[in-house]
C-alpha cells in the first residue's frame, strides 16, 4: 500500500506565546518546535498498516519553512520510509498549505490512504485534511478514533458530540484525519533517531507542486495576547459558607446561574 502522512511542525504546548513586532505572527525566539500532537496518531496509524501489509511504504510530507524538516526527521525516526519537504512561507494559510500538499501528492504514482492529525495546535484551523481531499478528488473522514481495514474498504469510527460516534464506511483512495484514541504513538529509539538523521528528505519548491501565494485565502493580523484578567474575588469561610456566598455571587452579580 502507498501510505502518506501529512504533518505540521508547531510550537511545543508548553510555549508561552509572544507576539512579534507588527502583530503578524509570533516571536519565534526560544521556541521549541514539535510535530503537532495529533499528527503523531496519523504517523503511528500509517506505520501499523504498513507493518501488516508487506511491501507497503509510508511517506511523510510537510509544507513549511526549513525548520519543519526536523518534524519529518521525527516521523522518519518513528519508522517512515520517505520524506518530502515542500518549501512554504511561514505566513501561508490553510488553503495555500493544502494546495502545496495536494500538489506533492499528485506527483506520486499511486496514493491509497493519506493520514492527517485532526488539527494542528498552532492555528487550530482544522481545514487542511478536507481541503487536500477535495483538491486531489478523494473523500475524507475526519476526527477518527478507530479504523478497521478490510481490503480497500475502511470502517472509520468518527467522534462527534455528546460521546456519540459515526461509523463511516469509505473506500480507498481516501483522506483520514485522526484524533486521540486512534492508537498509542510509539517513541523513536535512539538508533532510529540517529539513522533518521542520514535519511534523504526530498525537497520540492512551490513551482514543483504547482502552488503559489495567490492560493492564500485568509491572513491573520493584529495578533494580541488575551487581556490580563483582573484579580478575581476570593471567597472565604468554611465550605458551606463559601458555597452559599459563591452561589449568591453567581446568581446576583455575575448572573450566570
Amino acid at each position, binding site marked *: 500500500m502507498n501510505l502518506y502522512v501529512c504533518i505540521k511542525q508547531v510550537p511545543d504546548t508548553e510555549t508561552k*506565546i509572544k507576539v512579534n513586532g507588527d502583530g503578524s505572527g509570533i516571536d519565534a525566539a526560544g521556541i521549541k518546535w514539535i510535530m503537532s500532537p495529533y499528527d503523531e496518531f496519523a504517523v503511528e496509524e500509517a506505520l501499523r498498516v504498513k507493518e501488516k501489509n508487506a511491501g507497503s511504504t509510508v511517506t511523510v510530507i510537510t509544507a513549511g519553512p526549513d525548520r519543519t524538516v526536523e518534524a519529518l526527521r521525527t516521523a522518519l525516526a518513528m519508522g517512515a520510509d520517505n520524506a518530502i519537504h515542500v518549501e512554504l512561507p511561514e505566513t501561508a494559510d490553510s488553503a495555500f498549505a493544502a494546495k502545496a500538499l495536494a500538489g506533492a501528492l499528485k506527483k506520486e504514482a499511486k496514493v491509497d490512504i493519506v493520514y492527517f492529525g485532526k488539527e494542528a495546535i498552532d492555528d487550530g484551523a482544522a*481545514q487542511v485534511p478536507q481541503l487536500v481531499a477535495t483538491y486531489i478528488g478523494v473523500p475524507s*473522514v475526519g476526527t477518527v478514533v478507530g479504523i478497521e481495514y478490510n481490503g480497500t474498504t475502511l470502517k472509520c469510527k468518527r467522534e462527534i*458530540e455528546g460521546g456519540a460516534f459515526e461509523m463511516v464506511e469509505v473506500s480507498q483512495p481516501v483522506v483520514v484525519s485522526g484524533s486521540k484514541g486512534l492508537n498509542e504513538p510509539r517513541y523513536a529509539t535512539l538508533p532510529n533517531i540517529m539513522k533518521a538523521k542520514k535519511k534523504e528528505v526530498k525537497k520540492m519548491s512551490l513551482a514543483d507542486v504547482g502552488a503559489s501565494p495567490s492560493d492564500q485565502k485568509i491572513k*491573520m493580523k493584529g495578533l494580541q495576547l488575551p487581556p490580563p484578567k483582573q484579580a478575581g474575588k476570593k471567597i472565604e469561610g468554611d465550605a458551606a459558607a463559601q458555597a452559599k456566598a459563591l452561589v449568591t455571587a453567581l446568581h446576583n452579580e455575575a448572573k450566570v446561574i
Partner: protein
Amino acid sequence: MAKVLVFVEQRDGKLKKASFELLGASAKAGNETHAVIIGDGVAGLANECASYGASKVHVAQDGALKNYTNEAYARALVAAIKTVSPEIVLASHTPMGRDLLPSVAAQVDGALATDCTSLAFSGASLTLKRPVYSGKAMADVEYMGSGIKMATVRPNSIGVPKPEAGKTADATNLTVDLGGLKTKILEVVKGNSARPDVTEAGVVVSGGRSLKSADNFKIIEELADTLGAAVGASRAAVDAGYRPHRDQVGQTGKVVSPSLYIACGISGAIQHLAGMRTSKCIVAINTDPQAPIFQVADYGVVGDLFQVVPALTAECKKLKE
C-alpha cells in the same frame, strides 16, 4: 448589507442552538438571511429557522442525507450556494460544521476562517476574530481575493436571540445530485450521556487529578446535572483514566467558552488555560492558593473540593426551588 447563507445544523430532526446564534446575528445586522437545512424529512424545521431570522429557507431532503457524511452534505451545501449566490456563508464550529465547511470552501473556491469567536458584518464582508495557539493569542482575520467569504463560529460566542413566535418560512426544496457516493454511514452510535456536549454547553463543570478516581467524578457530575452543565476534565484527569478524552478541555482537547466554567481541583497548566480562558465567568476551587488557575478566575475558592463541591450542589438545588 450582505446576502448571507447560514448552514443550519440538525441531528435527529433537532436544530442546533448554535445555528440560531448565526441566524440571529445575520438578521439583526439587516442582511438578507438565507438558511439551508440538510437531512431527511426536515422540511418541518423551516418555520423554526424563520422564527430566528431566516427570510428564506432552502431544504435539501433525501434518504442519503439522513445522517451526516462529508461527501453528501458538501454536495447539498454547494447546491445551496449555487442557488443563493451568497456573499457570506456561515456555519457553527461543531463536529459537523468544522468538518463540512473546508470541503465546501475548496469546491466553491471560497475563503474560509474557522473557529471564530467574534463576528461583525461590515457591508458585504465580515470582521472576525479567532483564537490562535489554542487561545494563547487572538488574531483578526483578513480575507484575500474575491471568493465567497466563509466562516465557522464557535458555539456560545454570540448568544441565542429570542425567537419570534408564529413565523412561517418561505421555504423551497433544493435539488442535489447524490449519485455515486463513496462514503456511507453504517451506524450512529449514540452517547450514553444525557448531558450536553462540553463544546456546546452554557455551563461546564471540570475536574482535575485531585478527584483521585473516576468514581469520585460523581460529585462533579451531580453539580453539573444540577446546573444542566457539561462535565469537563483536565488532561491529567484524562491521562489518569478518570474521564474519556472527549471530555478533555485544553490545547490537546476541546476549547470551550461557556458563560460559566467551574474548575474543580485543576491547577491551571498553560495548556488547560488555553482551552477555557475565553469563558465568560470562571470559578476555581483548589486547595493550593498559589495555583495558576486563580489568576484567570473571577471567583476563587481556596478549599477542599470534596467539601466545597457537594455544598455547592446543595446550594444550587436550593436556588432552583
